[in-house]
Protein backbone atom coordinates (compact mmCIF):
# COMPACT_ATOMS: atom_id res chain seq x y z
CA UNK A 1 0.00 0.00 0.00
CA UNK A 2 1.37 3.38 -0.93
CA UNK A 3 0.22 5.52 1.98
CA UNK A 4 0.05 5.41 5.74
CA UNK A 5 -3.30 4.18 6.89
CA UNK A 6 -5.80 6.74 8.09
CA UNK A 7 -7.33 6.13 11.51
CA UNK A 8 -10.49 5.00 9.78
CA UNK A 9 -8.68 2.55 7.54
CA UNK A 10 -6.76 1.21 10.49
CA UNK A 11 -10.03 0.58 12.35
CA UNK A 12 -11.43 -1.07 9.23
CA UNK A 13 -8.39 -3.32 8.96
CA UNK A 14 -8.66 -4.45 12.58
CA UNK A 15 -12.37 -5.11 12.07
CA UNK A 16 -11.67 -7.23 8.99
CA UNK A 17 -9.09 -9.28 10.85
CA UNK A 18 -11.53 -10.37 13.56
CA UNK A 19 -12.81 -13.88 12.86
CA UNK A 20 -16.55 -14.33 12.31
CA UNK A 21 -18.41 -15.35 15.46
CA UNK A 22 -15.82 -13.88 17.81
CA UNK A 23 -16.49 -12.41 21.25
CA UNK A 24 -14.65 -9.11 21.44
CA UNK A 25 -13.95 -6.33 23.90
CA UNK A 26 -13.02 -2.96 22.40
CA UNK A 27 -11.13 -0.66 24.75
CA UNK A 28 -12.00 2.96 25.33
CA UNK A 29 -10.75 5.46 22.74
CA UNK A 30 -9.44 4.53 19.31
CA UNK A 31 -10.35 0.81 19.67
CA UNK A 32 -14.02 1.74 20.02
CA UNK A 33 -14.00 2.93 16.40
CA UNK A 34 -13.42 -0.66 15.25
CA UNK A 35 -17.10 -1.33 15.93
CA UNK A 36 -18.02 1.01 13.07
CA UNK A 37 -16.51 -1.45 10.60
CA UNK A 38 -17.74 -4.78 11.92
CA UNK A 39 -20.21 -6.30 9.48
CA UNK A 40 -23.44 -8.12 10.22
CA UNK A 41 -22.01 -11.16 8.43
CA UNK A 42 -19.17 -11.33 10.93
CA UNK A 43 -21.71 -11.78 13.72
CA UNK A 44 -19.33 -10.41 16.35
CA UNK A 45 -20.57 -10.24 19.95
CA UNK A 46 -19.26 -7.25 21.88
CA UNK A 47 -18.51 -7.46 25.59
CA UNK A 48 -18.44 -4.51 27.91
CA UNK A 49 -16.76 -5.21 31.22
CA UNK A 50 -19.39 -3.43 33.25
CA UNK A 51 -21.59 -6.44 32.79
CA UNK A 52 -22.93 -7.15 29.31
CA UNK A 53 -22.49 -9.28 26.23
CA UNK A 54 -24.27 -8.24 23.05
CA UNK A 55 -23.62 -4.54 23.26
CA UNK A 56 -24.98 -2.57 20.33
CA UNK A 57 -24.02 0.85 18.94
CA UNK A 58 -23.96 4.05 20.96
CA UNK A 59 -27.43 5.22 21.94
CA UNK A 60 -28.84 8.48 20.68
CA UNK A 61 -31.91 10.53 21.48
CA UNK A 62 -34.75 8.48 22.86
CA UNK A 63 -32.61 5.36 22.96
CA UNK A 64 -30.53 6.75 25.81
CA UNK A 65 -31.04 4.78 29.01
CA UNK A 66 -28.83 5.62 31.97
CA UNK A 67 -28.94 1.98 33.08
CA UNK A 68 -27.37 0.85 29.81
CA UNK A 69 -23.85 2.19 29.43
CA UNK A 70 -20.50 0.89 28.29
CA UNK A 71 -17.20 0.83 30.14
CA UNK A 72 -16.57 4.38 29.00
CA UNK A 73 -19.87 5.34 30.66
CA UNK A 74 -21.37 6.19 27.28
CA UNK A 75 -25.03 5.18 26.74
CA UNK A 76 -25.24 2.22 24.39
CA UNK A 77 -27.87 -0.16 23.04
CA UNK A 78 -28.43 -3.89 23.27
CA UNK A 79 -28.70 -6.34 20.40
CA UNK A 80 -30.86 -9.49 20.31
CA UNK A 81 -29.16 -12.25 22.26
CA UNK A 82 -27.63 -9.85 24.77
CA UNK A 83 -27.17 -10.83 28.39
CA UNK A 84 -26.38 -9.01 31.64
CA UNK A 85 -24.27 -10.18 34.56
CA UNK A 86 -22.59 -8.72 37.61
CA UNK A 87 -19.06 -7.35 37.77
CA UNK A 88 -17.41 -10.45 39.20
CA UNK A 89 -18.97 -12.64 36.53
CA UNK A 90 -18.01 -10.14 33.84
CA UNK A 91 -14.36 -10.04 34.84
CA UNK A 92 -14.33 -13.80 35.36
CA UNK A 93 -15.33 -14.02 31.71
CA UNK A 94 -12.33 -11.90 30.76
CA UNK A 95 -9.82 -13.38 33.20
CA UNK A 96 -10.88 -16.89 32.29
CA UNK A 97 -9.78 -16.39 28.70
CA UNK A 98 -13.21 -16.62 27.12
CA UNK A 99 -13.01 -13.52 24.95
CA UNK A 100 -11.43 -14.11 21.58
CA UNK A 101 -10.03 -10.66 21.04
CA UNK A 102 -9.47 -7.54 23.03
CA UNK A 103 -8.42 -4.37 21.20
CA UNK A 104 -6.57 -1.79 23.28
CA UNK A 105 -4.69 1.45 22.90
CA UNK A 106 -1.14 1.74 24.26
CA UNK A 107 1.64 4.10 25.26
CA UNK A 108 4.18 1.40 24.53
CA UNK A 109 4.39 -2.26 23.61
CA UNK A 110 7.54 -4.32 24.05
CA UNK A 111 8.93 -6.83 21.58
CA UNK A 112 7.81 -9.62 23.90
CA UNK A 113 4.28 -8.31 24.17
CA UNK A 114 4.47 -6.34 27.40
CA UNK A 115 1.84 -3.64 27.40
CA UNK A 116 2.02 -0.15 28.94
CA UNK A 117 -1.22 1.75 28.59
CA UNK A 118 -2.45 2.84 32.01
CA UNK A 119 0.01 5.22 33.61
CA UNK A 120 2.61 7.62 32.35
CA UNK A 121 4.61 7.16 35.50
CA UNK A 122 4.79 10.92 35.98
CA UNK A 123 5.41 11.50 39.69
CA UNK A 124 2.50 13.90 40.16
CA UNK A 125 -0.04 11.87 38.18
CA UNK A 126 -2.99 10.44 40.03
CA UNK A 127 -3.02 6.80 38.97
CA UNK A 128 -6.16 5.15 37.63
CA UNK A 129 -6.20 1.67 36.19
CA UNK A 130 -9.85 0.72 35.69
CA UNK A 131 -10.14 -2.53 33.79
CA UNK A 132 -6.94 -2.06 31.77
CA UNK A 133 -4.94 -4.80 33.49
CA UNK A 134 -7.84 -7.23 33.34
CA UNK A 135 -8.37 -6.59 29.64
CA UNK A 136 -4.68 -7.13 28.98
CA UNK A 137 -4.61 -10.40 30.86
CA UNK A 138 -7.69 -12.24 29.79
CA UNK A 139 -8.37 -12.35 26.07
CA UNK A 140 -7.00 -15.06 23.80
CA UNK A 141 -5.61 -12.34 21.55
CA UNK A 142 -4.78 -8.80 22.56
CA UNK A 143 -4.49 -6.43 19.64
CA UNK A 144 -3.02 -3.01 20.22
CA UNK A 145 -3.97 -0.04 18.04
CA UNK A 146 -1.62 2.89 18.30
CA UNK A 147 0.57 5.26 16.36
CA UNK A 148 3.94 3.65 15.82
CA UNK A 149 5.83 6.78 16.81
CA UNK A 150 5.32 9.26 19.60
CA UNK A 151 5.11 12.96 18.81
CA UNK A 152 8.83 13.28 19.40
CA UNK A 153 9.49 10.56 16.83
CA UNK A 154 10.53 7.82 19.24
CA UNK A 155 9.04 4.42 18.48
CA UNK A 156 6.36 3.02 20.77
CA UNK A 157 7.10 -0.59 19.89
CA UNK A 158 10.26 -1.01 21.94
CA UNK A 159 12.72 -3.56 23.31
CA UNK A 160 11.44 -2.90 26.83
CA UNK A 161 8.70 -0.58 28.08
CA UNK A 162 9.84 2.45 30.05
CA UNK A 163 6.31 3.25 31.19
CA UNK A 164 4.75 1.21 34.02
CA UNK A 165 3.40 -2.07 32.72
CA UNK A 166 -0.23 -3.01 32.34
CA UNK A 167 0.50 -6.64 31.60
CA UNK A 168 3.40 -8.92 30.80
CA UNK A 169 3.72 -10.69 27.45
CA UNK A 170 0.05 -10.25 26.64
CA UNK A 171 -0.03 -8.43 23.28
CA UNK A 172 -0.17 -10.62 20.17
CA UNK A 173 -0.52 -7.98 17.44
CA UNK A 174 0.19 -4.28 17.03
CA UNK A 175 -1.79 -2.30 14.47
CA UNK A 176 -0.28 1.04 13.51
CA UNK A 177 -0.74 3.48 10.64
CA UNK A 178 2.65 2.40 9.30
CA UNK A 179 2.52 -1.35 9.65
CA UNK A 180 0.96 -4.37 11.32
CA UNK A 181 3.27 -6.33 13.62
CA UNK A 182 2.78 -9.90 14.79
CA UNK A 183 4.40 -10.63 18.14
CA UNK A 184 5.49 -14.24 17.79
CA UNK A 185 7.74 -16.58 19.75
CA UNK A 186 10.37 -15.98 17.04
CA UNK A 187 10.19 -12.23 17.46
CA UNK A 188 8.41 -9.23 15.97
CA UNK A 189 7.25 -10.01 12.48
CA UNK A 190 6.05 -7.31 10.08
CA UNK A 191 2.86 -8.53 8.44
CA UNK A 192 2.42 -5.59 6.09
CA UNK A 193 3.54 -1.99 5.76
CA UNK A 194 1.65 1.09 4.65
CA UNK A 195 3.50 3.85 2.76
CA UNK A 196 6.82 2.63 4.06
CA UNK A 197 9.12 -0.37 3.87
CA UNK A 198 10.46 -2.83 6.34
CA UNK A 199 13.93 -1.35 5.84
CA UNK A 200 12.76 2.16 6.55
CA UNK A 201 10.92 1.05 9.68
CA UNK A 202 13.91 -0.96 10.82
CA UNK A 203 16.10 2.12 10.53
CA UNK A 204 13.84 4.00 12.96
CA UNK A 205 13.30 1.22 15.49
CA UNK A 206 15.40 -0.45 18.14
CA UNK A 207 14.01 -3.93 17.77
CA UNK A 208 14.82 -6.51 15.16
CA UNK A 209 11.97 -6.79 12.65
CA UNK A 210 11.29 -10.08 10.90
CA UNK A 211 9.96 -10.00 7.33
CA UNK A 212 6.45 -11.16 6.40
CA UNK A 213 6.08 -14.88 5.98
CA UNK A 214 4.99 -16.03 2.55
Amino acid at each position, binding site marked *: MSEKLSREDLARLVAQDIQPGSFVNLGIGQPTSVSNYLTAEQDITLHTENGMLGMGPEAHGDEID*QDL*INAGKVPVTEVPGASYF*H*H*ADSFAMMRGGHLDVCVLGAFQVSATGDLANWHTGAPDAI*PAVGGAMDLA*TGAKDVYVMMSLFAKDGTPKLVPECSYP*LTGVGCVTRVYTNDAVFLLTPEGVRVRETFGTTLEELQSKMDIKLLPPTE
Partner: protein
Amino acid sequence: MAKFAATAQDAVAGIQDGATVLIGGFGNAGQPMELIDALMDCGATDLTVVNNNAGQADAGLALLIKERRVKKIICSFPRQSDSWHFDTAYRAGEIELELVPQGNLAERIRAAGAGIGGFFTPTGYGTMLAEGKETRMIDGKGYVLESPIYGDVALIKALTSDKKGNLVYRKTARNFGPIMAAAAKKSIVQVSGIVETGQLDPEVIVTPGIYVDTVVEIAPQAAEGEAH
Protein backbone atom coordinates in the same frame (compact mmCIF):
# COMPACT_ATOMS: atom_id res chain seq x y z
CA MET B 1 -34.35 -11.06 57.15
CA ALA B 2 -34.89 -7.89 55.18
CA LYS B 3 -36.39 -4.92 56.96
CA PHE B 4 -38.06 -2.05 55.20
CA ALA B 5 -37.15 1.55 55.98
CA ALA B 6 -39.43 4.48 55.34
CA THR B 7 -36.69 6.83 54.20
CA ALA B 8 -33.11 6.74 53.03
CA GLN B 9 -32.18 8.51 56.27
CA ASP B 10 -33.75 5.72 58.33
CA ALA B 11 -32.05 3.13 56.16
CA VAL B 12 -28.52 4.41 56.77
CA ALA B 13 -29.00 5.28 60.44
CA GLY B 14 -26.54 3.27 62.44
CA ILE B 15 -23.59 3.53 60.07
CA GLN B 16 -20.70 4.10 62.44
CA ASP B 17 -17.66 6.32 62.20
CA GLY B 18 -14.79 4.30 60.81
CA ALA B 19 -17.05 1.93 58.87
CA THR B 20 -16.02 0.32 55.60
CA VAL B 21 -18.79 1.19 53.15
CA LEU B 22 -19.15 -0.63 49.84
CA ILE B 23 -20.96 1.61 47.37
CA GLY B 24 -22.41 0.11 44.22
CA GLY B 25 -22.69 1.66 40.80
CA PHE B 26 -20.63 2.18 37.71
CA GLY B 27 -21.09 5.65 36.38
CA ASN B 28 -24.66 6.63 37.16
CA ALA B 29 -25.91 3.11 36.51
CA GLY B 30 -26.70 1.43 39.79
CA GLN B 31 -25.43 4.29 41.86
CA PRO B 32 -27.48 4.54 45.08
CA MET B 33 -27.47 8.31 45.05
CA GLU B 34 -30.16 8.86 47.70
CA LEU B 35 -28.44 6.47 50.11
CA ILE B 36 -25.12 8.27 49.60
CA ASP B 37 -26.84 11.59 50.25
CA ALA B 38 -28.34 10.13 53.41
CA LEU B 39 -24.92 8.89 54.50
CA MET B 40 -23.73 12.46 54.02
CA ASP B 41 -26.55 13.72 56.22
CA CYS B 42 -26.07 11.13 58.95
CA GLY B 43 -22.66 12.49 59.80
CA ALA B 44 -20.58 9.29 59.87
CA THR B 45 -16.93 10.03 59.25
CA ASP B 46 -13.51 8.36 58.98
CA LEU B 47 -15.05 6.08 56.40
CA THR B 48 -13.30 3.63 54.13
CA VAL B 49 -15.21 3.63 50.86
CA VAL B 50 -15.07 0.92 48.21
CA ASN B 51 -16.38 2.02 44.83
CA ASN B 52 -15.24 1.75 41.26
CA ASN B 53 -14.52 5.48 41.15
CA ALA B 54 -13.76 8.29 43.57
CA GLY B 55 -16.72 10.55 43.06
CA GLN B 56 -17.79 12.73 40.21
CA ALA B 57 -18.67 16.42 40.04
CA ASP B 58 -20.44 17.88 43.07
CA ALA B 59 -22.69 15.05 44.12
CA GLY B 60 -22.79 11.87 46.13
CA LEU B 61 -19.44 10.33 46.92
CA ALA B 62 -17.62 13.44 45.66
CA LEU B 63 -19.30 15.47 48.42
CA LEU B 64 -18.36 12.93 51.09
CA ILE B 65 -14.77 13.31 49.93
CA LYS B 66 -15.04 17.10 49.76
CA GLU B 67 -16.16 17.13 53.38
CA ARG B 68 -13.25 14.86 54.35
CA ARG B 69 -15.51 12.13 55.63
CA VAL B 70 -13.60 9.49 53.68
CA LYS B 71 -10.21 8.60 55.10
CA LYS B 72 -9.48 5.92 52.52
CA ILE B 73 -10.87 4.89 49.17
CA ILE B 74 -10.41 1.53 47.48
CA CYS B 75 -11.20 1.89 43.80
CA SER B 76 -10.02 1.18 40.27
CA PHE B 77 -10.43 4.53 38.57
CA PRO B 78 -10.28 7.62 40.78
CA ARG B 79 -9.08 10.11 38.19
CA GLN B 80 -11.79 11.40 35.92
CA SER B 81 -12.49 14.70 34.23
CA ASP B 82 -14.82 15.66 37.06
CA SER B 83 -13.12 14.06 40.07
CA TRP B 84 -11.86 17.41 41.36
CA HIS B 85 -12.82 16.85 44.99
CA PHE B 86 -10.89 13.60 45.10
CA ASP B 87 -7.97 15.15 43.20
CA THR B 88 -7.74 18.00 45.72
CA ALA B 89 -7.99 15.75 48.76
CA TYR B 90 -5.45 13.33 47.31
CA ARG B 91 -2.91 15.98 46.42
CA ALA B 92 -3.32 17.46 49.90
CA GLY B 93 -2.55 14.04 51.38
CA GLU B 94 -5.96 14.01 53.03
CA ILE B 95 -7.27 10.79 51.56
CA GLU B 96 -5.60 7.43 51.26
CA LEU B 97 -5.94 5.62 47.92
CA GLU B 98 -5.75 1.87 47.37
CA LEU B 99 -5.79 1.41 43.62
CA VAL B 100 -7.06 -2.01 42.49
CA PRO B 101 -7.57 -3.31 38.95
CA GLN B 102 -11.30 -3.43 38.37
CA GLY B 103 -11.54 -7.19 37.99
CA ASN B 104 -9.46 -7.79 41.09
CA LEU B 105 -11.69 -5.33 42.92
CA ALA B 106 -14.76 -7.28 41.86
CA GLU B 107 -13.19 -10.65 42.67
CA ARG B 108 -11.96 -9.44 46.08
CA ILE B 109 -15.47 -8.29 46.94
CA ARG B 110 -16.87 -11.58 45.67
CA ALA B 111 -14.31 -13.49 47.77
CA ALA B 112 -15.45 -11.71 50.93
CA GLY B 113 -19.04 -12.75 50.36
CA ALA B 114 -18.03 -16.27 49.40
CA GLY B 115 -15.81 -16.98 52.41
CA ILE B 116 -12.63 -17.25 50.33
CA GLY B 117 -9.55 -16.21 52.31
CA GLY B 118 -7.50 -15.18 49.30
CA PHE B 119 -6.96 -16.06 45.65
CA PHE B 120 -4.31 -16.04 42.99
CA THR B 121 -5.15 -13.76 40.07
CA PRO B 122 -3.09 -13.18 36.92
CA THR B 123 -4.28 -9.58 36.70
CA GLY B 124 -1.61 -7.14 37.75
CA TYR B 125 1.19 -9.69 37.78
CA GLY B 126 4.47 -8.03 36.87
CA THR B 127 3.08 -4.53 37.37
CA MET B 128 3.58 -1.91 40.06
CA LEU B 129 0.15 -2.75 41.48
CA ALA B 130 1.57 -6.14 42.51
CA GLU B 131 4.56 -4.63 44.30
CA GLY B 132 4.85 -5.95 47.83
CA LYS B 133 2.32 -8.69 47.18
CA GLU B 134 2.91 -12.41 47.22
CA THR B 135 3.26 -13.85 43.73
CA ARG B 136 3.46 -17.37 42.43
CA MET B 137 4.07 -19.17 39.16
CA ILE B 138 1.31 -21.70 38.52
CA ASP B 139 1.64 -23.87 35.42
CA GLY B 140 4.07 -21.39 33.97
CA LYS B 141 1.89 -18.33 34.45
CA GLY B 142 2.38 -15.56 36.99
CA TYR B 143 -0.27 -14.83 39.63
CA VAL B 144 -0.68 -12.35 42.47
CA LEU B 145 -2.31 -13.25 45.80
CA GLU B 146 -5.22 -10.94 46.53
CA SER B 147 -7.31 -10.76 49.68
CA PRO B 148 -11.04 -10.33 50.26
CA ILE B 149 -12.59 -6.89 50.77
CA TYR B 150 -15.21 -7.07 53.50
CA GLY B 151 -17.70 -4.32 54.12
CA ASP B 152 -19.40 -3.26 57.31
CA VAL B 153 -22.13 -1.83 55.14
CA ALA B 154 -23.08 -1.97 51.48
CA LEU B 155 -25.15 0.73 49.81
CA ILE B 156 -26.57 -0.52 46.55
CA LYS B 157 -29.37 0.14 44.09
CA ALA B 158 -31.64 -2.48 42.55
CA LEU B 159 -34.75 -2.30 40.42
CA THR B 160 -37.25 -4.28 42.50
CA SER B 161 -37.40 -6.06 45.82
CA ASP B 162 -40.03 -8.42 47.09
CA LYS B 163 -41.03 -8.51 50.75
CA LYS B 164 -38.28 -11.04 51.46
CA GLY B 165 -35.62 -8.74 50.07
CA ASN B 166 -35.08 -10.77 46.92
CA LEU B 167 -33.69 -8.41 44.29
CA VAL B 168 -33.63 -7.98 40.56
CA TYR B 169 -31.59 -5.33 38.76
CA ARG B 170 -31.83 -3.53 35.45
CA LYS B 171 -29.33 -3.80 32.57
CA THR B 172 -25.78 -2.62 33.35
CA ALA B 173 -26.99 -1.13 36.63
CA ARG B 174 -26.47 -4.61 38.08
CA ASN B 175 -22.66 -4.19 38.13
CA PHE B 176 -21.31 -4.32 41.71
CA GLY B 177 -24.66 -4.71 43.50
CA PRO B 178 -24.88 -8.50 43.89
CA ILE B 179 -21.31 -8.98 45.09
CA MET B 180 -21.39 -6.03 47.45
CA ALA B 181 -24.64 -7.21 49.01
CA ALA B 182 -22.92 -10.51 49.83
CA ALA B 183 -19.68 -8.95 51.07
CA ALA B 184 -21.10 -6.60 53.70
CA LYS B 185 -22.30 -7.35 57.22
CA LYS B 186 -25.26 -5.10 56.52
CA SER B 187 -26.65 -4.47 53.05
CA ILE B 188 -28.84 -1.44 52.47
CA VAL B 189 -30.66 -1.36 49.16
CA GLN B 190 -32.61 1.34 47.43
CA VAL B 191 -35.13 0.03 44.95
CA SER B 192 -37.51 1.62 42.50
CA GLY B 193 -40.34 -0.63 43.56
CA ILE B 194 -41.42 -3.27 46.06
CA VAL B 195 -43.66 -6.19 45.17
CA GLU B 196 -45.34 -8.93 47.15
CA THR B 197 -43.37 -12.07 47.89
CA GLY B 198 -43.98 -14.53 45.10
CA GLN B 199 -44.22 -11.85 42.42
CA LEU B 200 -40.60 -12.35 41.35
CA ASP B 201 -39.88 -15.51 39.39
CA PRO B 202 -37.51 -17.68 41.50
CA GLU B 203 -35.44 -18.35 38.37
CA VAL B 204 -34.61 -14.69 37.79
CA ILE B 205 -33.79 -13.43 41.28
CA VAL B 206 -30.22 -12.16 41.16
CA THR B 207 -29.67 -11.35 44.84
CA PRO B 208 -31.51 -13.67 47.23
CA GLY B 209 -32.95 -11.94 50.29
CA ILE B 210 -30.43 -13.64 52.57
CA TYR B 211 -27.97 -10.96 51.45
CA VAL B 212 -30.31 -8.04 52.11
CA ASP B 213 -30.81 -6.32 55.44
CA THR B 214 -32.61 -3.06 54.73
CA VAL B 215 -34.68 -2.00 51.75
CA VAL B 216 -35.97 1.47 51.02
CA GLU B 217 -38.15 2.42 48.10
CA ILE B 218 -36.99 5.54 46.28
CA ALA B 219 -39.16 6.58 43.36
CA PRO B 220 -37.02 7.06 40.26
CA GLN B 221 -36.27 10.68 39.46
CA ALA B 222 -37.65 12.23 36.34
CA ALA B 223 -35.20 12.17 33.48
CA GLU B 224 -34.02 15.74 34.09
CA GLY B 225 -31.67 14.60 36.84
CA GLU B 226 -30.03 12.13 34.51
CA ALA B 227 -28.74 14.50 31.88
CA HIS B 228 -25.25 15.12 33.32
